[in-house]
């Protein structure tokens, strides 16, 4: 009994999913736990999300100023293009009639960049998580149905996936965003409408594999109904895969939202990091080398996207041990 396990230890485990123990929910919980225990980077990703989540929740408390209101000096003029206080020349602010306590300076119409950065985390996380959830849920359901029932259901759903694969993603989002009322939800809707395709295909092929496994046939021979087989036998095995794709989808959603905002198709009333960069780009911050304006939003995007990647890779390593970094 021990022997079996130990001898198999020297052989590469199958590329199919390797699961250890548990009832459906406990199992999922333990897989998740294993991901974060085994992979410190995934844990780091989780940490990044946690920090940004706290920032997003308490944004109004943390941000010193309103992100949209231009700040004014004593004379009522906008405090345009103020440098961060740690870069600005001493005394300049007094000469201009304001107190420079701006961590990251102000924009060309006098908005506080640091406050914008804080508020930007809200749209990033909101879009990231809701789009990822939508993509994962739709993809999982499509994959389950197509893989399990096959035949016409499969043919229709997979042709739909082909269509989704044929629609150019960014242009689609741009058009949707332009036609609907400006809102960060446009990105979520557009992503949900297209990006289920990858998740759906992968889940489907995994369902096809699991469906053919002897333990599923055994359940059928024992008289288990279709629903029982789907929910008790197949779904628990593919849920970690949905989580994997979900984590990556968070990353793509944040990136996409940033791109769309950068192109100017977002709601100008909602601050996002992409919007900030668009603002910087359009107001020629580049030629002024205003790094304090350009760098922070980009870094924030990169950090949150990487957090999604790290978590996704953590799942990958648990689900596909062959790829494991040893």
């Amino acid at each position, binding site marked *: 009994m021990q022997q079996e396990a130990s001898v198999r230890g020297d052989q590469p485990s199958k590329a199919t999913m390797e699961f250890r123990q548990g009832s459906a929910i406990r199992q999922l919980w333990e897989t998740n736990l294993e991901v974060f225990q085994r992979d410190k980077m995934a844990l780091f990703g989780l940490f990044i999300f946690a920090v940004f989540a706290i920032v997003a929740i308490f944004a109004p408390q943390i941000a010193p100023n309103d992100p949209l209101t231009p700040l004014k000096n004593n004379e009522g003029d906008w405090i345009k293009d103020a440098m961060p206080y740690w870069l600005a020349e001493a005394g300049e602010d007094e000469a201009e009639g304001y107190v420079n306590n701006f961590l990251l300076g102000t924009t060309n119409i006098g908005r506080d960049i640091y406050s914008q950065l804080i508020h930007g985390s809200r749209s990033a996380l909101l879009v990231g998580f809701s789009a990822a959830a939508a993509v994962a849920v739709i993809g999982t359901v499509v994959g389950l149905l197509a893989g399990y029932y096959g035949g016409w259901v499969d043919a229709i759903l997979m042709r739909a996936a082909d*269509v989704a694969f044929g629609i*150019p*993603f960014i242009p689609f989002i*741009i058009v949707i965003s332009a036609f609907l009322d400006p809102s960060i939800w446009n990105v979520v809707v557009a992503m949900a409408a297209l990006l289920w395709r990858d998740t759906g295909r992968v889940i489907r092929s995994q369902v096809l594999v699991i469906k053919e496994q002897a333990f599923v046939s055994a359940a059928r021979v024992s008289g288990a109904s279709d629903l029982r087989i789907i929910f008790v036998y197949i779904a628990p095995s593919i849920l970690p895969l949905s989580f994997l794709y979900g984590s990556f989808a968070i990353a793509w959603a944040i990136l996409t939202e940033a791109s769309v905002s950068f192109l100017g198709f977002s709601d100008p009333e909602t601050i996002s990091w992409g919007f900030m960069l668009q603002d910087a780009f359009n107001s020629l911050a*580049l030629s002024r080398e205003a790094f304090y304006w*350009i760098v922070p939003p980009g870094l924030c995007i990169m*950090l949150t996207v990487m957090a999604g990647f790290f978590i996704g890779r953590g799942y990958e390593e648990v689900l596909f041990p062959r790829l494991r970094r040893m």
Partner: protein
Amino acid sequence: MSRGVAFYILGRFLQSVMVLWIIVTLLFLLFRLAPTNPLASYIDTTFTKQQEAALLARFGLDKPLGEQYIIYLVNLLKLDLGDTFSYSGKSVLDLLGADLPNTIYLTLTSLLLAYAVGVLGGIVMAAMRGSMVERVGTTFTLMTRAAPQFWVGMLLLTFFAFQWKLLPSSGIGPPMVRYRWETEWDKLMSPVFWRHMILPTFTLALYLHGLPLLLMRSNMLEVLDQDYVTMSRLAGYSEWRVMIQTAARNAMLPVLTALTLGIGYSIGGNVVIEHVFSWPGLGRTLVRAVQQADYPLAQGAFFLIAVIIVFMNFIADIMYSLLDPRVGASAQAQAS
């Protein structure tokens, strides 16, 4: 080419046509969703009702939806994409025809660069699995994939164009030069053009190299576990042969597919890069068209991009069946 493979290709082709037809239909419906009258930007407040009606008739917008749809399909088949609103009525096809080559140059150059680096990098990462180099390398690659392309572009612009003034900041050439190139060939032969290519190409390639690298790495790791790789080790082949000739060759197949798909998706996804570098390509035109409510142009650009994507998906399918004898043969066996 055998009958089986031919059948397979024909079937795939028909399927692509069907997919395209559905996309085109969706596109038609999508543009009926547009919040404003498609002629809003055209119609002056001083227009009379008659003038408006005439204009609507000119664009066929007074007919019932079904009829419009038929006209639309017929026009697409004739490759008649209509006239633009905003570029003084220039034909959409002409305008896009001028943009397309620029997008293709940018895309292909970056893709080739990215895949060359990515494939080699992937092999190295797989060979050095578990080492410090691998950890640093893959983390760097992940960072390039996580960083928004436009942001990387902005940073590069700030340094190379504005701070050090080494490279041009936008466009494909100085404004007056643009019209001096009589032919595409002249353009490609012009050093000025290539100088303008450097920054956007590098930015795009930096982003694109991640996929082939990570894919190649994981394929290599998978293939290295296969029995035929063990076999070639047992046969006493040198490690170089085992890694390159046997493992890498087999691991390459999915990467080539990704490259083919990547051409399609990059052409549609270059929007952001083209915007940052004011690169006169399909993406930038699409953005502008949408911003200016120039619907025929936007629709045309969208259509063109979709055609390219569907076509490249088709090519990727075919290529896989030709490159991997197993796939080709199963199609063959089933038809014979």
